[in-house]
């Protein structure tokens, strides 16, 4: 954490470099979105750029590049695993039937049951 005066001055230079990179990458994000590669292609490109920007913020602004505490790395490692598990959840639903099929069937039988009862 704490660094000498000279260390901090060095940090400041990397903050400015990251600032420039983030500004340029924001423009790149908008620019590439004007092209249509493919549905999946655009998502992949956008997420790669966003991931790169996020890495810059986390490693330089959030000081992870200089972080030596094993406790923080353990917390982040576990967090990463559970985050991936969360993002994987929608994949588990891939073989589910489209919802309106269920609703349609349910609606019809429901209506029939109701009208049949009277």
């Amino acid at each position, binding site marked *: *954490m*704490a660094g000498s005066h000279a260390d901090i001055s060095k940090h400041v230079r990397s903050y400015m470099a990251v600032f420039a990179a983030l500004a340029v990458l924001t423009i790149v994000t908008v620019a590439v979105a004007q092209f249509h590669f493919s549905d999946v292609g655009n998502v992949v490109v956008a997420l790669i750029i966003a991931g790169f920007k996020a890495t810059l913020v986390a490693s330089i602004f*959030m000081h992870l590049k200089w972080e030596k505490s094993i406790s*923080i790395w353990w917390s982040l490692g576990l967090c990463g695993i559970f985050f991936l598990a969360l993002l994987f*959840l929608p994949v588990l639903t891939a073989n589910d039937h*489209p919802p309106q099929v269920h609703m349609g069937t349910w609606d019809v039988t429901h209506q029939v049951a109701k009208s049949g009862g009277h």
Partner: protein
Amino acid sequence: MSTAVLPYTVEPHPVTGVYSGKLGIWLFLASEVMLFGGLFSAYVFLRVGAEAAGSPAAWPTHEETHLSWVIGGINTLVLIVSSVTMVMAWASLKMNDFAKGKMYLWLTAALATTFLVVKLAFEYWPKFQHGLVPAKNNFFGIYFTLTGLHGLHVFGGIVVILYFILPGSKLWHRDKEYYANRIECTGLYWHFVDLVWIFLFPVLYLL
């Protein structure tokens, strides 16, 4: 009256290797990743589900969402600059320049307020006036949930930063290192809020 002293606010804890506030804020941020991660997952679920349902109206196009990448892009840059001023506030304090540190904190708070004003005045308000409310469709449901929660985090950040500029700054005169550490923790939170927006912007405005 004796004042209670919190241990390990400056010197690293022998077990964790960092001052305790820093580990605390990282654990909090880990829980925040889960919170936003779940909502991102919900976004993917809704969008993939809408496309699988095959109905063209299931997921609105950019023309239908009326989200301007110009406004979104400007706000992205505003947040990035605010992250720079935040980290510069910490660096100035570490270099023993309280006046400069405070100036950077003011700038950060001002930029954060700019973000919220742009969001509310140029995005939320016109949307509401045109009936584009969360109940309109799944897109606006998840859009307002994600950006609303993110906006609340920006607001929370403003409150914390103002606290450290105004009453909280007394700590500087008592213990400079402790104050700088608290600003570092505030910064960790603030950069996380910026980081979430880095993903929200392309996902909601561009894809």
